[in-house]
């Protein structure tokens, strides 16, 4: 059988079986086993064992459970509620104020957690009922929560970047720095969009009546700010600062961040036995899940390369009769489509080892290319039909919120994503400037 046919068959089987609903890790591992046994031989199981040892002893990846734990503790510390309450009071009287409050809270939350689930669920439970109570437009409200939630995988710390870095052979610390400007750019673009839309059509996000916003003195406002935004900012700065200044490797910074989050939760008097227990158990569950996918996806990629699939994809992409920016667009498009059918870990593990050398040979800066791929993947979390942010929100939203509302709500934000991607392509310095200072 020709390598082209094997490649097509292997990817096709993978996608069909994943879409049929069996756990992704088992599909990746199982498909690799079948193709490996048939086209290579019984020895291929060794690849799986070696991948397992390698993944479980990878120092960079240890940051994943640590950042997940840090996010879980922050979630349970009541910090999101404090933040949102403060924002509510500070912004409530503005048109679309609760939307702005939601996006800002999501952005700050994104800098303290590494995954999207935490912020979508927290804000879905906190901000959505409030916005519905004050007759905010449901698509607008749900769209903001989903878009804000996906910032969690972009703004550091980010589990996605932790997996991307070692796979592409790029320093995680540099990628963290590179993600800051695009993340803030997206957050600002969301806010500006919300302000303009609500200014033009106040029905979308009416300003809260005076009675609904607590009348507070400036001193009280400062106090609210100081006890919500300030501590979490210090936490974020300690983690990112330690990496930026080279005091600690990302893994150590994750450890320090987790430690600091415990102190923060204790300071808010929310470090209860129950909260700690829940954080520990959910960290174990989510990390076990992620590592199983990592190992299986690594095994799949190895077998894919071993049967010649890597060469087929590389030859196909580099053989396209396009200028280099055209090939770049094709690669980003493939990543976007893969993100629809295979989960993000699989997408990174399969596409990144193949595309990174192609991008380098076309003369693109590796960090810039990595960040373009990451922003495209982050957009994928938001884009129907397969969109984690939408799944999470639908799972906890009140019944009057229909999936159609959320689909309608995310579309403008997806357009904003594409606008920012074009901006990042035109001005690569937006990505490369911060890491170049390290």
């Amino acid at each position, binding site marked *: 059988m020709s390598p082209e046919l094997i490649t097509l068959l292997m990817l096709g089987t993978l996608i069909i079986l994943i879409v049929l609903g069996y756990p992704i890790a088992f599909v990746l591992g199982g498909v690799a086993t079948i193709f490996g046994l048939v086209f*290579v*031989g019984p*020895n*291929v199981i*060794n*690849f799986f064992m*070696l*991948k397992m*040892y*390698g993944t479980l002893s990878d120092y960079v990846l240890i940051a994943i459970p640590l950042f997940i734990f840090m996010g879980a503790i922050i979630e349970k510390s009541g910090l999101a509620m404090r933040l949102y309450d403060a924002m509510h009071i500070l912004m409530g009287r503005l048109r679309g104020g609760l939307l702005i409050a939601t996006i800002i809270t999501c952005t700050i939350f994104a800098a303290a957690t590494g995954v999207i689930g935490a912020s979508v669920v927290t804000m879905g439970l906190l901000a959505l009922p409030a916005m519905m109570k004050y007759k905010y437009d449901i698509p607008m409200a749900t769209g903001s929560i989903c878009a804000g939630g996906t910032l969690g995988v972009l703004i550091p710390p980010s589990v996605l970047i932790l997996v991307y870095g070692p796979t592409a*052979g790029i*320093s995680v*610390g540099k990628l963290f720095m590179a993600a800051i400007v695009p993340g803030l750019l997206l957050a600002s673009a969301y806010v500006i969009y919300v302000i303009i839309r609500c200014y033009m059509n106040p029905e979308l996000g009416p300003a809260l009546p005076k009675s609904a916003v607590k009348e507070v003195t400036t001193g009280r406002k400062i106090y609210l700010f100081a006890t919500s935004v300030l501590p979490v900012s210090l936490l974020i700065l300690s983690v990112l600062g330690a990496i930026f*200044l*080279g*005091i600690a*490797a990302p893994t150590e910074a994750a450890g320090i961040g987790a430690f600091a989050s415990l102190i923060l939760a204790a300071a808010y008097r929310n470090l209860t036995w129950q909260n700690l227990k829940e954080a520990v158990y959910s960290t174990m569950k989510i990390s076990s899940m992620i590592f199983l996918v990592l190992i299986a996806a690594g095994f799949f990629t*190895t077998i894919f*390369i*071993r049967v010649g699939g*890597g060469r087929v994809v590389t030859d196909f992409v580099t053989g396209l009769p396009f200028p280099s920016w055209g090939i770049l667009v094709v690669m980003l498009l493939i990543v976007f489509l893969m993100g629809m059918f295979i989960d993000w870990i699989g997408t990174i593990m399969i596409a990144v*080892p193949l595309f990174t*050398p192609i991008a380098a040979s076309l003369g693109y800066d590796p960090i810039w290319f990595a960040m373009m791929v990451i922003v495209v993947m982050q957009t994928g979390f938001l884009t129907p039909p397969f969109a984690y942010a939408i799944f999470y929100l639908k799972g906890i939203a009140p019944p009057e919120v229909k999936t159609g509302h959320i689909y309608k709500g995310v579309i403008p934000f997806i357009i904003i994503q594409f606008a920012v991607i074009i901006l990042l392509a035109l001005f690569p310095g937006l990505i490369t400037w911060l890491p170049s200072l*390290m």
Partner: protein
Amino acid sequence: GCSSTTSNSSSDGVSQEKVKWQLATSWPDSIMIQDMPVQWAKMIKEISNGRFEIDVHPAGSLVGAAEVLDATTSGTVDAYHTFSGYWIGKMSGSPFFSSVPMTMEPFMYMTWIYEGGGLELWQRMYDEAGYNVKIIPLGIQHPETLAWSNKPLKTLDDWSGLKYRGVGWWAEILRDNNVNVTSVPGGEIYPSLERGVIDAAEFSSPFNDKGLGFYEVTDYLAGPGMHQPSTLFYIGINKDAWNALPADLQVLAETAARATTLWSWTHDFDQSMKAVDYFEEKGIKQVRVDESVQLKLQKDTWELLDKRSADEGGVFADIWASMKDYRAKFIDYEDLMVPVRGSKQ
């Protein structure tokens, strides 16, 4: 093994077997060491007229850098290229075949390996440990850069308290001399030097070091390469794959390895010479550690290895005894035969 062999009949009726191997290395594509297996595979393919083809995969593509030996002994891949010292956790004597501080320079080392019984001892160590691999030396480098630093390192006082990146036996010896040794991974050396996480670092030869840009963040380059007077690399081949290889291709593999080894040695030497000139232009000051320090550290190294030999016995002790014995004879012979270098102009 998973090597694929297909039979073709050529026009004159002689059976011409085609062999394809998968080789995994411990290196990324970007460093010169990876060129050693790549050049070897290219030479073999050309000389065999395409009959023997070897796919060279960088670290992480098929298996991770630290997994190449396990992958080959089980036949998951046919061969690997690495640095024997990586297996110190599997075979305590493994660094003897990659580099020994203050012991053997490249010519001495290669003579011992090829002619003085070194290769036989090397193979014996892997056999005794239960690995199903055949050893073929592939690639050697001249003494490495001892340290990139921001202060001159001449005396033991200069070294005392220094935060230095180093590995293996050398790290142990320096620790006993009050040096604060850490094992920073290759890719983290540059930022660590830049921000003072470490004061000094060794990595590889000036040629390889140039690519990593250490000269941008330090002021001094210290020699001589006491810690690695030479660095030897090798190919390990799954024995079943090796035994299945036609006799002429076996000869070709070994001969091409010798040719590539000579190429890597002279190429690294030449490029490193030019790199040092380049560093000088960039304002890097060269320092040579005092001879008394060198002799002290040699004494420490030898005491350590003598003691280990006494403790462990077996192949470890045999290797060390053979190395020391051969070295002594080599030095005596060179003293007799090699003229002084005299005038340079």
